[in-house]
């Protein structure tokens, strides 16, 4: 999967959780929970969606690595099928 495809999945799922926030103007290096004003339930739904759509099971211990959009892209890229 390409970086663009992964970004598109992240964009879709965050739009579902926080429809009023403009993804393109969001800071990709700030924590998603703050940037998109989402709580732990929303964040778990985000992780669940990544698992369902990309097949990547992010363990809780790695939540800090996917806490930002940039971090999530870097983390997910090598773990998705080509």
């Amino acid at each position, binding site marked *: 999967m390409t970086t663009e495809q992964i970004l598109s999945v992240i964009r879709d799922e965050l739009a579902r959780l926080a429809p009023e926030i403009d993804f393109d103007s969001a800071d990709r290096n700030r924590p998603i929970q703050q940037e998109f004003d989402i709580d*732990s*339930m929303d964040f*778990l*739904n985000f992780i669940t969606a990544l698992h*369902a759509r990309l097949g990547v099971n992010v363990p*809780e*211990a790695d939540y800090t690595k996917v806490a930002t959009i940039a971090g999530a892209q870097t983390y997910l890229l090598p773990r998705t099928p080509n």
Partner: protein
Amino acid sequence: MPSLGADMEAATLIEWLAKPGDKVKRGDVIAVVETQKGAIEIEVFEDGVLEAHVVAPGAVLPVGAVMARFRGAGEAAAAMPAAAPPPAPTPTAPKPPPPTEAPPPRRAPPAAGPRASPAARRLAEEVGVDLASIAGSGPGGAITREDVAARAQVSAGKKPAGFDFTAMRRAIAAAMGRSKREIPHYYLSHTIDIGAAQDWLAAANAQRPPAERLLMGALIIKAVAKAAREFPEFNGFHVEDEFRPSEAIHVGVAIAIRGGGLAAPAIHDTADLALADLMTRMRDLVARVRAGRFRSSEIADPTITVTSLGDRGVDAVWGVIYPPQVAIVGFGRIVVRPWVVDGQVTARPTVCMTLAADHRVSDGHRGALFLERTGQLLANPGEL
């Protein structure tokens, strides 16, 4: 029209989901109404047959108004033209009675053509609304211009399942204003070491795929529910100058809604749910509340409320009791603090729990024991 909370006076029927002649079971969703809290699914209170719709979608109905004629299982199919069986306002006992100031049920429009003001007739013609589809709110059930306007708005598809934030703000203002006027709150706080619960959660979630993971919120709600079973004076309703404890424990969960406002619908029989089931219910409830759709029994009958603002980064939250409930338990964020364990200062994850309770019903001494018990339950998460 059942009472869906102390602050509710009326609601608009959006759609019928059961037709005349349908057999329905207790808990089936038969209609959707729009209230200040958003769209709510109305559940039927007993098994039976829906005989007839009395009002049509678009009707604005006060609490207590007859919506449909219903025949309970075992009742004869006798024609009952005027006297519809009164629907119970809530499904479980003991139940909060409808507010004493509730307006009396209004009569449905007479069969021989609805009564309507001239202005109402003109507007109905202009916007193409059938007067027969409207339950009038004027004197003697007459249809007013406002009734027609309300119906027209609904017909025009004015986002029936969304939120009206102005109305929600008013609903919160009414309930919280009443709480602060009528309920003599007392407040307690208790900070506990939450490390055992965090460790237990991390171990449990390590084995689970994301869809089955648990959140601290589930442990918290379960602990409060179990403690409430041992301290019944925090679980129930204060109505008509007396406290009516509730046998059932339905913990209301305060859920923030994007854009403003909140709702605190119940998770039924919380103390009896396994953590995994409780978590599933929470996920489902949060999703539905944020989509603006929940069920009548969820909104009407929480027996105690939990509010957790930990995710928002504050150390403690001092709740305002949702009348006619008598207690609200608050949880702040998890903070690593210097903590003394076995005579040594060490860094531990801690959480500040608070209790706001109704002093007409309980005293600080019992409140302290209740809060302490909740903390003990969280210290032994394997037994939750």
